[in-house]
């Protein structure tokens, strides 16, 4: 039971961190619960589908289907997170101010919410499909211990949800203005980390073989399979043996985010303020 609890918790942990951040980011946006909840639900359903077809998925692309699928959904998440940050550079001040109820902000707000709902859905899908496979396998085995393992799995899910709540609670204690600045940085790092993970999957699939030398090995200092290492892996993309390509992609995403935010953020300020009311 304890083993099941740990396995499920490890999978749900990452998704919990990401959902917590997204909930904090969208604190001021109306209807956010509906969108984020929808994202989680879609993620769970998709995870079941992916788990059911795991064998078929794996056999695609000469046995590299799983890696390419992971790389593809991570790329979707990276694009959505970057888009959200750029969008916030333009509309963040409107949302933070008293314009929360302004019709356009709501409409535009749901556009950004859609992006974040996709990010949440993708995170749940990725981690969830492994949980589904594991629990299904346990129940299908029909051992006496099956229910105790399922119980452990449920406990793991609850602990993962707790991570989500704690992340959220930690972030919302930051005052609104600072929250936007903090989460912008968090989301940029999250996106860069996901891009580096996607790079790793492409390297695993042998689709990306350029610059595959490991730049450093900091496993002796902080292993990325330790608890703290895993948290940092999700949050900022820490890995103890990054390849040159992973580093390049990581920095490129940060640079692109920064440049796009400058372009669209300053364009917003240069334009006359829309009439309020």
């Amino acid at each position, binding site marked *: 039971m304890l083993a099941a609890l740990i396995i499920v918790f490890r999978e749900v942990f990452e998704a919990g961190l990401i959902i917590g951040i997204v909930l904090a980011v969208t604190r001021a946006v109306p209807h956010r619960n509906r969108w984020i909840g929808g994202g989680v639900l879609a993620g769970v359903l998709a995870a079941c589908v992916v788990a059911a077809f795991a064998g078929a998925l*794996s056999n695609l692309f000469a046995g590299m289907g799983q890696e390419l699928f992971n790389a593809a959904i991570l790329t979707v998440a990276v694009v959505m997170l970057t888009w959200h940050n750029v969008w916030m550079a333009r509309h963040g001040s409107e949302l933070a101010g008293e314009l929360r109820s302004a019709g356009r902000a709501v409409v535009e707000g749901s556009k950004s919410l859609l992006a974040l709902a996709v990010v949440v859905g993708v995170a749940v899908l990725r981690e969830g499909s492994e949980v589904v*496979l594991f629990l*299904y396998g346990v129940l299908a085995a029909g051992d006496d211990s099956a229910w105790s393992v399922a119980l452990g799995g449920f406990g793991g899910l609850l602990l993962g949800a707790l991570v989500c709540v704690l992340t959220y609670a930690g972030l919302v204690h930051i005052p609104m203005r600072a929250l936007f600045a903090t989460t912008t940085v968090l989301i940029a790092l999250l996106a860069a980390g996901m891009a580096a993970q996607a790079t790793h999957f492409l390297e695993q699939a042998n689709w990306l073989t350029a*610059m595959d030398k490991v730049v450093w090995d900091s496993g002796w200092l902080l292993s990325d399979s330790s608890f703290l290492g895993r948290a940092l892996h999700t949050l900022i993309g820490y890995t103890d043996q990054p390849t040159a390509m992973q580093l390049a992609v990581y920095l490129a995403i940060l640079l*692109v985010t920064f440049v*796009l935010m400058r372009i669209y953020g300053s364009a917003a300020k240069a334009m006359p303020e829309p009439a309020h009311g």
Partner: protein
Amino acid sequence: MFASPMLSKTAFFVALCLASVSAMSTAGAQTATEIQLSYKDKKFEPAEISAAANTPVVIKLKNLDAKAMEFESKTLKVEKVVAGGGDAIINVRAQKPGRYEFFDEYNEKTARGALVVK
């Protein structure tokens, strides 16, 4: 109103990334050592495999059990779910000499093996 030019620029950026990725990925990788490995009754067979140093390794894993398993190695940086009765191909980049442990994440205690690189 702002969304559409921004979207098209995002799309352009993505296309650019994809183009550069496909340009960089070369078709012919180094010739790799191929190793057959099977998994049955929550055990790897053989439990120890070996390969030469500084050569990429391809592990061809057959899961003979009915349940799914996840091949994982922290030191080799590999994680792969293998469906019950399914096959998997695992690419391992060229390694320095050493002993690299792997296990089934769902049965971490009993299902263990190692790749010895000489």
